[in-house]
Protein backbone atom coordinates (compact mmCIF):
# COMPACT_ATOMS: atom_id res chain seq x y z
CA UNK A 1 0.00 0.00 0.00
CA UNK A 2 2.61 2.46 1.13
CA UNK A 3 4.78 1.24 -1.74
CA UNK A 4 2.05 2.06 -4.23
CA UNK A 5 1.57 5.56 -2.84
CA UNK A 6 5.29 6.09 -2.84
CA UNK A 7 5.72 5.09 -6.46
CA UNK A 8 2.76 7.31 -7.24
CA UNK A 9 4.47 10.23 -5.57
CA UNK A 10 7.69 9.51 -7.40
CA UNK A 11 5.76 9.30 -10.68
CA UNK A 12 4.18 12.67 -9.93
CA UNK A 13 7.55 14.32 -9.33
CA UNK A 14 9.16 12.82 -12.40
CA UNK A 15 6.04 13.43 -14.41
CA UNK A 16 5.62 17.11 -13.67
CA UNK A 17 9.37 17.54 -14.03
CA UNK A 18 9.31 15.95 -17.45
CA UNK A 19 6.27 17.87 -18.65
CA UNK A 20 7.76 21.17 -17.49
CA UNK A 21 11.22 20.47 -18.85
CA UNK A 22 9.84 19.33 -22.16
CA UNK A 23 7.57 22.31 -22.65
CA UNK A 24 10.18 24.76 -21.36
CA UNK A 25 12.64 23.36 -23.87
CA UNK A 26 9.96 23.67 -26.53
CA UNK A 27 9.59 27.35 -25.58
CA UNK A 28 13.29 27.92 -26.13
CA UNK A 29 13.45 25.93 -29.34
CA UNK A 30 10.37 27.64 -30.72
CA UNK A 31 11.64 31.10 -29.88
CA UNK A 32 14.98 30.31 -31.50
CA UNK A 33 13.27 29.03 -34.60
CA UNK A 34 11.12 32.14 -34.86
CA UNK A 35 14.18 34.31 -34.29
CA UNK A 36 16.02 32.59 -37.14
CA UNK A 37 13.04 32.82 -39.45
CA UNK A 38 12.49 36.50 -38.73
CA UNK A 39 16.19 37.41 -38.56
CA UNK A 40 17.00 36.00 -41.94
CA UNK A 41 13.88 37.34 -43.53
CA UNK A 42 12.66 33.86 -44.37
CA UNK A 43 9.16 34.84 -43.42
CA UNK A 44 8.90 37.78 -45.79
CA UNK A 45 5.59 37.36 -47.46
CA UNK A 46 6.98 37.24 -51.00
CA UNK A 47 9.29 34.48 -49.99
CA UNK A 48 6.57 32.50 -48.28
CA UNK A 49 4.37 33.08 -51.29
CA UNK A 50 7.18 31.87 -53.51
CA UNK A 51 7.53 28.80 -51.43
CA UNK A 52 3.97 27.98 -52.36
CA UNK A 53 4.29 28.48 -56.09
CA UNK A 54 3.43 25.21 -57.74
CA UNK A 55 4.64 23.80 -61.03
CA UNK A 56 1.52 25.14 -62.67
CA UNK A 57 2.70 28.65 -62.06
CA UNK A 58 5.91 28.05 -63.89
CA UNK A 59 4.17 27.37 -67.16
CA UNK A 60 5.50 29.21 -70.18
CA UNK A 61 4.03 32.55 -71.01
CA UNK A 62 5.07 33.98 -74.34
CA UNK A 63 4.01 37.40 -75.35
CA UNK A 64 2.63 36.34 -78.70
CA UNK A 65 0.06 33.81 -77.64
CA UNK A 66 -3.47 35.07 -78.02
CA UNK A 67 -5.89 35.36 -75.16
CA UNK A 68 -7.90 32.63 -76.80
CA UNK A 69 -5.03 30.24 -76.69
CA UNK A 70 -4.36 31.08 -73.11
CA UNK A 71 -7.96 30.42 -72.23
CA UNK A 72 -7.95 27.08 -74.02
CA UNK A 73 -4.82 25.96 -72.32
CA UNK A 74 -6.14 27.15 -68.98
CA UNK A 75 -9.24 25.03 -69.35
CA UNK A 76 -7.23 22.00 -70.41
CA UNK A 77 -4.76 22.45 -67.61
CA UNK A 78 -7.45 22.94 -65.06
CA UNK A 79 -9.11 19.69 -66.04
CA UNK A 80 -5.79 18.03 -66.07
CA UNK A 81 -4.51 19.39 -62.82
CA UNK A 82 -7.40 17.80 -61.01
CA UNK A 83 -5.67 14.48 -61.57
CA UNK A 84 -3.41 13.86 -58.63
CA UNK A 85 -0.15 12.30 -59.70
CA UNK A 86 -0.14 8.54 -59.89
Amino acid at each position, binding site marked *: *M*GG*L*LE*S*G*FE*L*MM*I*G*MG*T*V*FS*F*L*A*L*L*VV*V*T*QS*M*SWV*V*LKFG*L*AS*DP*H*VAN*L*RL*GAADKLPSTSKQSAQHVAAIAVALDTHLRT*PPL
Partner: protein
Amino acid sequence: MDLLDQLWNGSGLAQMTFGQFAMILISLLLLYLAIAKKFEPLLLVTIGFGGLLSNIPGAEIATGNGLLHLIYEVGIETGAFPLIIFMGVGALTDFGPLLANPKTLLLGAAAQFGIFATLLGALGLSALGVMDFDLKQAAAIGIIGGADGPTAIFVAGKLAPELLGAIAIAAYSYMALVPIIQPPIMRALTTEKERGIVMVQLREVSTLEKIVFPLLLLLLVAFLLPSAAPLLGMFCFGNLMRECGVVERLAETTRTSLINVVTIFLGLGVGSKLGADSFLTAETLGILALGMVAFSIGTASGVLMAKLMNLFSANPINPLIGAAGVSAVPMAARVVNKVGLEANSQNFLLMHAMGPNVAGVIGSAVAAGLMIMITGG
Protein backbone atom coordinates in the same frame (compact mmCIF):
# COMPACT_ATOMS: atom_id res chain seq x y z
CA MET B 1 -46.56 -23.08 -28.85
CA ASP B 2 -42.83 -23.53 -29.07
CA LEU B 3 -42.21 -20.54 -31.30
CA LEU B 4 -44.20 -18.23 -29.04
CA ASP B 5 -42.08 -19.38 -26.12
CA GLN B 6 -38.95 -18.74 -28.14
CA LEU B 7 -40.28 -15.31 -29.06
CA TRP B 8 -40.95 -14.45 -25.44
CA ASN B 9 -37.65 -15.85 -24.22
CA GLY B 10 -35.86 -13.86 -26.87
CA SER B 11 -37.59 -10.62 -25.95
CA GLY B 12 -35.98 -7.83 -24.01
CA LEU B 13 -38.71 -7.96 -21.38
CA ALA B 14 -37.78 -11.52 -20.50
CA GLN B 15 -34.03 -11.05 -20.57
CA MET B 16 -33.31 -7.54 -19.38
CA THR B 17 -31.44 -7.20 -16.11
CA PHE B 18 -31.90 -4.27 -13.80
CA GLY B 19 -28.38 -3.15 -14.63
CA GLN B 20 -29.14 -3.04 -18.32
CA PHE B 21 -32.27 -1.07 -17.64
CA ALA B 22 -30.30 1.40 -15.57
CA MET B 23 -27.68 1.73 -18.27
CA ILE B 24 -30.36 2.41 -20.86
CA LEU B 25 -31.58 5.26 -18.67
CA ILE B 26 -28.02 6.55 -18.27
CA SER B 27 -27.50 6.37 -22.03
CA LEU B 28 -30.71 8.29 -22.59
CA LEU B 29 -29.48 10.86 -20.08
CA LEU B 30 -26.23 11.24 -22.02
CA LEU B 31 -28.24 11.73 -25.21
CA TYR B 32 -30.43 14.29 -23.47
CA LEU B 33 -27.40 16.23 -22.24
CA ALA B 34 -25.82 16.08 -25.67
CA ILE B 35 -28.89 17.12 -27.62
CA ALA B 36 -30.75 19.46 -25.32
CA LYS B 37 -27.80 20.87 -23.40
CA LYS B 38 -25.11 20.65 -26.12
CA PHE B 39 -22.69 18.75 -23.87
CA GLU B 40 -19.94 17.68 -26.30
CA PRO B 41 -22.54 16.40 -28.72
CA LEU B 42 -20.14 14.90 -31.26
CA LEU B 43 -19.00 12.40 -28.68
CA LEU B 44 -21.89 12.07 -26.28
CA VAL B 45 -24.45 11.40 -29.02
CA THR B 46 -22.32 8.62 -30.45
CA ILE B 47 -21.18 7.20 -27.09
CA GLY B 48 -24.68 7.47 -25.67
CA PHE B 49 -26.23 5.65 -28.59
CA GLY B 50 -23.50 3.03 -28.41
CA GLY B 51 -24.40 2.60 -24.75
CA LEU B 52 -28.04 2.08 -25.66
CA LEU B 53 -27.17 -0.58 -28.21
CA SER B 54 -24.76 -2.30 -25.84
CA ASN B 55 -27.41 -2.84 -23.20
CA ILE B 56 -30.06 -4.43 -25.36
CA PRO B 57 -30.25 -7.93 -23.90
CA GLY B 58 -29.60 -10.77 -26.29
CA ALA B 59 -28.70 -8.52 -29.21
CA GLU B 60 -24.99 -9.16 -28.61
CA ILE B 61 -24.00 -6.01 -30.47
CA ALA B 62 -21.16 -5.21 -28.10
CA THR B 63 -19.81 -8.72 -27.69
CA GLY B 64 -18.44 -11.51 -29.87
CA ASN B 65 -18.96 -10.75 -33.55
CA GLY B 66 -21.34 -7.88 -32.87
CA LEU B 67 -20.60 -4.73 -34.87
CA LEU B 68 -19.73 -2.55 -31.88
CA HIS B 69 -17.35 -5.14 -30.51
CA LEU B 70 -15.64 -5.47 -33.88
CA ILE B 71 -15.34 -1.69 -34.02
CA TYR B 72 -13.80 -1.72 -30.55
CA GLU B 73 -11.28 -4.39 -31.45
CA VAL B 74 -10.29 -2.87 -34.76
CA GLY B 75 -10.21 0.77 -33.82
CA ILE B 76 -9.77 1.23 -30.11
CA GLU B 77 -7.87 -1.81 -28.87
CA THR B 78 -5.27 -1.07 -31.56
CA GLY B 79 -5.25 2.62 -30.71
CA ALA B 80 -5.95 3.49 -34.34
CA PHE B 81 -9.07 5.60 -33.88
CA PRO B 82 -7.77 7.95 -31.17
CA LEU B 83 -4.61 8.43 -33.23
CA ILE B 84 -6.53 9.21 -36.40
CA ILE B 85 -8.71 11.66 -34.48
CA PHE B 86 -5.52 13.26 -33.22
CA MET B 87 -4.31 13.60 -36.79
CA GLY B 88 -7.61 15.28 -37.63
CA VAL B 89 -7.32 17.60 -34.65
CA GLY B 90 -3.84 18.49 -35.84
CA ALA B 91 -5.30 19.37 -39.23
CA LEU B 92 -7.79 21.63 -37.44
CA THR B 93 -5.36 23.29 -35.04
CA ASP B 94 -3.89 26.72 -35.64
CA PHE B 95 -0.63 27.05 -33.71
CA GLY B 96 -0.46 30.73 -34.62
CA PRO B 97 -1.41 32.13 -31.20
CA LEU B 98 1.00 29.73 -29.50
CA LEU B 99 3.84 30.69 -31.84
CA ALA B 100 3.14 34.36 -31.27
CA ASN B 101 3.57 33.83 -27.53
CA PRO B 102 5.46 30.57 -26.90
CA LYS B 103 5.74 31.21 -23.18
CA THR B 104 2.12 30.18 -22.84
CA LEU B 105 3.38 26.64 -23.35
CA LEU B 106 4.29 26.77 -19.67
CA LEU B 107 0.64 27.28 -18.79
CA GLY B 108 -0.13 24.08 -20.65
CA ALA B 109 2.55 22.39 -18.59
CA ALA B 110 1.26 23.63 -15.24
CA ALA B 111 -2.29 22.53 -15.90
CA GLN B 112 -1.11 18.93 -16.21
CA PHE B 113 -0.61 18.93 -12.45
CA GLY B 114 -4.24 17.87 -12.37
CA ILE B 115 -3.23 14.61 -14.02
CA PHE B 116 -0.59 13.70 -11.51
CA ALA B 117 -2.51 14.88 -8.45
CA THR B 118 -5.39 12.69 -9.55
CA LEU B 119 -3.10 9.74 -10.05
CA LEU B 120 -1.92 10.23 -6.52
CA GLY B 121 -5.52 10.59 -5.36
CA ALA B 122 -6.51 7.32 -7.01
CA LEU B 123 -3.62 5.56 -5.34
CA GLY B 124 -4.50 7.23 -2.06
CA LEU B 125 -8.07 5.93 -2.22
CA SER B 126 -6.63 2.49 -2.86
CA ALA B 127 -4.22 2.82 0.03
CA LEU B 128 -7.18 3.72 2.21
CA GLY B 129 -8.99 0.64 0.95
CA VAL B 130 -11.86 2.72 -0.49
CA MET B 131 -11.01 1.72 -4.03
CA ASP B 132 -8.71 -0.83 -5.56
CA PHE B 133 -6.79 0.78 -8.41
CA ASP B 134 -3.33 -0.38 -9.40
CA LEU B 135 -0.68 1.95 -10.85
CA LYS B 136 -1.78 1.51 -14.48
CA GLN B 137 -5.39 2.15 -13.65
CA ALA B 138 -4.48 5.19 -11.57
CA ALA B 139 -2.43 6.56 -14.44
CA ALA B 140 -5.30 6.06 -16.87
CA ILE B 141 -7.70 7.79 -14.50
CA GLY B 142 -5.30 10.67 -14.02
CA ILE B 143 -5.26 11.37 -17.76
CA ILE B 144 -8.90 12.47 -17.47
CA GLY B 145 -7.34 15.61 -16.06
CA GLY B 146 -5.67 16.14 -19.43
CA ALA B 147 -9.08 17.11 -20.78
CA ASP B 148 -8.37 15.53 -24.16
CA GLY B 149 -10.73 12.79 -25.19
CA PRO B 150 -8.53 10.93 -27.66
CA THR B 151 -5.56 11.02 -25.28
CA ALA B 152 -7.67 9.62 -22.47
CA ILE B 153 -9.09 6.88 -24.69
CA PHE B 154 -5.68 6.02 -26.10
CA VAL B 155 -4.12 5.71 -22.65
CA ALA B 156 -7.05 3.84 -21.15
CA GLY B 157 -7.01 1.40 -24.08
CA LYS B 158 -3.35 0.69 -23.35
CA LEU B 159 -3.27 0.73 -19.55
CA ALA B 160 -6.76 -0.09 -18.31
CA PRO B 161 -9.21 -1.19 -21.02
CA GLU B 162 -11.59 -2.44 -18.34
CA LEU B 163 -12.08 1.18 -17.21
CA LEU B 164 -12.31 2.66 -20.69
CA GLY B 165 -16.04 3.29 -20.65
CA ALA B 166 -16.00 5.09 -17.31
CA ILE B 167 -12.90 7.10 -18.19
CA ALA B 168 -14.31 8.23 -21.53
CA ILE B 169 -17.63 9.19 -19.99
CA ALA B 170 -15.87 11.10 -17.23
CA ALA B 171 -13.54 12.86 -19.65
CA TYR B 172 -16.25 14.02 -22.02
CA SER B 173 -18.71 14.85 -19.26
CA TYR B 174 -16.26 17.12 -17.51
CA MET B 175 -15.12 18.64 -20.77
CA ALA B 176 -18.78 19.45 -21.33
CA LEU B 177 -19.04 20.84 -17.81
CA VAL B 178 -16.03 23.12 -18.23
CA PRO B 179 -18.29 26.22 -18.36
CA ILE B 180 -19.66 25.23 -14.95
CA ILE B 181 -16.57 23.78 -13.27
CA GLN B 182 -13.98 26.37 -14.24
CA PRO B 183 -15.41 29.87 -13.62
CA PRO B 184 -15.77 29.63 -9.81
CA ILE B 185 -12.20 28.37 -9.51
CA MET B 186 -10.95 31.07 -11.84
CA ARG B 187 -12.75 33.78 -9.88
CA ALA B 188 -11.63 32.44 -6.51
CA LEU B 189 -7.97 32.55 -7.45
CA THR B 190 -7.88 35.97 -9.11
CA THR B 191 -8.78 39.53 -8.27
CA GLU B 192 -11.13 41.60 -10.39
CA LYS B 193 -8.16 43.67 -11.42
CA GLU B 194 -6.15 40.67 -12.53
CA ARG B 195 -9.08 39.40 -14.58
CA GLY B 196 -9.28 42.77 -16.26
CA ILE B 197 -5.69 42.75 -17.51
CA VAL B 198 -5.55 43.54 -21.21
CA MET B 199 -2.80 41.65 -23.00
CA VAL B 200 -0.69 43.05 -25.83
CA GLN B 201 -1.89 42.10 -29.27
CA LEU B 202 -0.33 38.96 -30.72
CA ARG B 203 2.07 39.37 -33.62
CA GLU B 204 1.44 37.88 -37.04
CA VAL B 205 3.09 34.50 -37.45
CA SER B 206 4.67 33.57 -40.78
CA THR B 207 3.77 30.49 -42.77
CA LEU B 208 7.30 29.17 -42.47
CA GLU B 209 7.14 29.21 -38.68
CA LYS B 210 3.88 27.32 -38.83
CA ILE B 211 5.38 24.72 -41.15
CA VAL B 212 8.52 24.22 -39.07
CA PHE B 213 6.82 24.06 -35.67
CA PRO B 214 5.19 20.61 -35.96
CA LEU B 215 8.49 19.20 -37.23
CA LEU B 216 10.41 20.76 -34.34
CA LEU B 217 7.91 19.39 -31.88
CA LEU B 218 8.16 15.93 -33.36
CA LEU B 219 11.96 15.99 -33.33
CA LEU B 220 11.96 17.00 -29.68
CA VAL B 221 9.63 14.10 -28.95
CA ALA B 222 11.83 11.73 -30.94
CA PHE B 223 14.94 12.70 -29.04
CA LEU B 224 13.49 13.06 -25.57
CA LEU B 225 10.28 11.12 -25.09
CA PRO B 226 9.63 8.61 -27.88
CA SER B 227 6.74 7.05 -25.99
CA ALA B 228 4.75 10.19 -26.74
CA ALA B 229 5.49 9.81 -30.45
CA PRO B 230 2.34 7.99 -31.56
CA LEU B 231 0.02 10.68 -30.17
CA LEU B 232 2.13 13.74 -30.91
CA GLY B 233 3.38 12.27 -34.16
CA MET B 234 -0.08 11.96 -35.63
CA PHE B 235 -0.98 15.37 -34.24
CA CYS B 236 2.05 16.96 -35.88
CA PHE B 237 1.39 15.08 -39.12
CA GLY B 238 -2.13 16.46 -39.33
CA ASN B 239 -0.85 19.94 -38.55
CA LEU B 240 1.92 19.74 -41.13
CA MET B 241 -0.60 18.70 -43.79
CA ARG B 242 -2.65 21.73 -42.79
CA GLU B 243 0.16 24.25 -42.89
CA CYS B 244 2.49 23.05 -45.64
CA GLY B 245 0.16 24.27 -48.36
CA VAL B 246 0.93 21.54 -50.88
CA VAL B 247 -1.43 18.78 -49.76
CA GLU B 248 -4.54 20.80 -49.16
CA ARG B 249 -6.82 18.09 -50.53
CA LEU B 250 -5.46 15.63 -47.96
CA ALA B 251 -5.76 18.12 -45.11
CA GLU B 252 -9.30 18.98 -46.09
CA THR B 253 -10.40 15.35 -46.12
CA THR B 254 -8.60 14.73 -42.83
CA ARG B 255 -10.46 17.46 -41.01
CA THR B 256 -13.87 16.65 -42.53
CA SER B 257 -14.83 13.20 -43.84
CA LEU B 258 -12.09 11.27 -42.14
CA ILE B 259 -12.40 12.76 -38.67
CA ASN B 260 -16.19 12.55 -38.91
CA VAL B 261 -16.25 8.88 -39.85
CA VAL B 262 -13.74 7.99 -37.16
CA THR B 263 -15.61 10.06 -34.57
CA ILE B 264 -18.77 8.06 -35.28
CA PHE B 265 -17.02 4.74 -34.90
CA LEU B 266 -14.93 5.88 -31.95
CA GLY B 267 -18.10 6.90 -30.16
CA LEU B 268 -19.85 3.63 -30.89
CA GLY B 269 -16.77 1.69 -29.87
CA VAL B 270 -16.47 3.55 -26.57
CA GLY B 271 -20.19 3.04 -26.09
CA SER B 272 -19.61 -0.69 -26.37
CA LYS B 273 -17.84 -0.41 -23.02
CA LEU B 274 -20.97 0.86 -21.30
CA GLY B 275 -22.33 -2.64 -20.68
CA ALA B 276 -23.97 -2.84 -17.28
CA ASP B 277 -21.56 -5.48 -15.97
CA SER B 278 -18.48 -3.40 -16.49
CA PHE B 279 -19.87 0.09 -15.99
CA LEU B 280 -22.12 -0.20 -12.94
CA THR B 281 -19.40 -0.62 -10.37
CA ALA B 282 -18.03 1.33 -7.47
CA GLU B 283 -14.94 2.07 -9.55
CA THR B 284 -17.03 4.13 -11.94
CA LEU B 285 -18.19 6.36 -9.09
CA GLY B 286 -14.61 6.70 -7.95
CA ILE B 287 -13.50 7.61 -11.45
CA LEU B 288 -16.22 10.22 -11.81
CA ALA B 289 -15.25 11.79 -8.49
CA LEU B 290 -11.54 11.71 -9.29
CA GLY B 291 -12.15 13.16 -12.72
CA MET B 292 -13.84 16.17 -11.20
CA VAL B 293 -10.88 16.66 -8.87
CA ALA B 294 -8.50 16.38 -11.80
CA PHE B 295 -10.25 19.12 -13.74
CA SER B 296 -10.39 21.42 -10.77
CA ILE B 297 -6.74 21.01 -9.86
CA GLY B 298 -5.66 21.42 -13.46
CA THR B 299 -7.63 24.66 -13.75
CA ALA B 300 -6.22 26.01 -10.52
CA SER B 301 -2.66 25.07 -11.45
CA GLY B 302 -2.93 26.85 -14.76
CA VAL B 303 -4.25 30.04 -13.18
CA LEU B 304 -1.64 30.03 -10.43
CA MET B 305 1.14 29.44 -12.94
CA ALA B 306 -0.04 32.45 -14.93
CA LYS B 307 0.09 34.55 -11.78
CA LEU B 308 3.58 33.30 -11.09
CA MET B 309 4.73 34.06 -14.63
CA ASN B 310 3.27 37.54 -14.27
CA LEU B 311 5.85 38.27 -11.60
CA PHE B 312 8.64 37.86 -14.14
CA SER B 313 7.00 38.88 -17.37
CA ALA B 314 7.54 42.17 -19.18
CA ASN B 315 4.15 42.02 -20.84
CA PRO B 316 1.35 41.35 -18.38
CA ILE B 317 -0.45 38.01 -18.60
CA ASN B 318 -4.08 37.79 -17.68
CA PRO B 319 -4.11 34.85 -15.25
CA LEU B 320 -7.43 33.64 -16.57
CA ILE B 321 -5.77 32.25 -19.68
CA GLY B 322 -3.96 29.75 -17.47
CA ALA B 323 -7.26 27.94 -17.06
CA ALA B 324 -7.26 27.17 -20.78
CA GLY B 325 -4.11 25.12 -20.20
CA VAL B 326 -6.16 22.06 -19.30
CA SER B 327 -7.04 21.92 -23.03
CA ALA B 328 -10.74 20.98 -23.42
CA VAL B 329 -10.31 22.66 -26.80
CA PRO B 330 -12.07 24.93 -27.63
CA MET B 331 -14.48 25.21 -24.72
CA ALA B 332 -11.94 26.25 -22.08
CA ALA B 333 -10.69 29.12 -24.26
CA ARG B 334 -14.24 30.33 -24.70
CA VAL B 335 -14.83 30.20 -20.97
CA VAL B 336 -11.72 32.32 -20.43
CA ASN B 337 -13.05 34.84 -22.92
CA LYS B 338 -16.39 34.96 -21.15
CA VAL B 339 -15.00 35.39 -17.64
CA GLY B 340 -12.58 38.01 -18.93
CA LEU B 341 -15.40 40.01 -20.48
CA GLU B 342 -17.23 40.04 -17.15
CA ALA B 343 -14.32 41.92 -15.60
CA ASN B 344 -13.62 44.18 -18.56
CA SER B 345 -16.13 44.41 -21.34
CA GLN B 346 -13.45 45.43 -23.87
CA ASN B 347 -11.13 42.56 -23.04
CA PHE B 348 -11.24 39.79 -25.62
CA LEU B 349 -8.99 36.99 -24.38
CA LEU B 350 -10.02 34.31 -26.84
CA MET B 351 -6.96 34.47 -29.07
CA HIS B 352 -4.65 34.74 -26.05
CA ALA B 353 -6.29 31.68 -24.50
CA MET B 354 -5.81 29.60 -27.63
CA GLY B 355 -2.06 29.38 -27.01
CA PRO B 356 -2.32 27.66 -23.62
CA ASN B 357 -5.31 25.75 -24.93
CA VAL B 358 -3.31 23.89 -27.59
CA ALA B 359 -0.30 23.81 -25.27
CA GLY B 360 -2.50 21.76 -22.97
CA VAL B 361 -2.98 19.22 -25.74
CA ILE B 362 0.77 18.88 -26.09
CA GLY B 363 1.25 18.78 -22.34
CA SER B 364 -1.19 15.99 -21.72
CA ALA B 365 0.18 13.98 -24.64
CA VAL B 366 3.62 14.30 -23.07
CA ALA B 367 2.21 13.16 -19.74
CA ALA B 368 0.46 10.28 -21.48
CA GLY B 369 3.64 9.14 -23.19
CA LEU B 370 5.44 9.21 -19.89
CA MET B 371 2.73 7.21 -18.12
CA ILE B 372 2.72 4.58 -20.86
CA MET B 373 6.48 4.26 -20.77
CA ILE B 374 6.83 4.08 -17.01
CA THR B 375 3.86 1.90 -16.12
CA GLY B 376 4.69 -0.31 -19.11
CA GLY B 377 1.66 0.06 -21.38
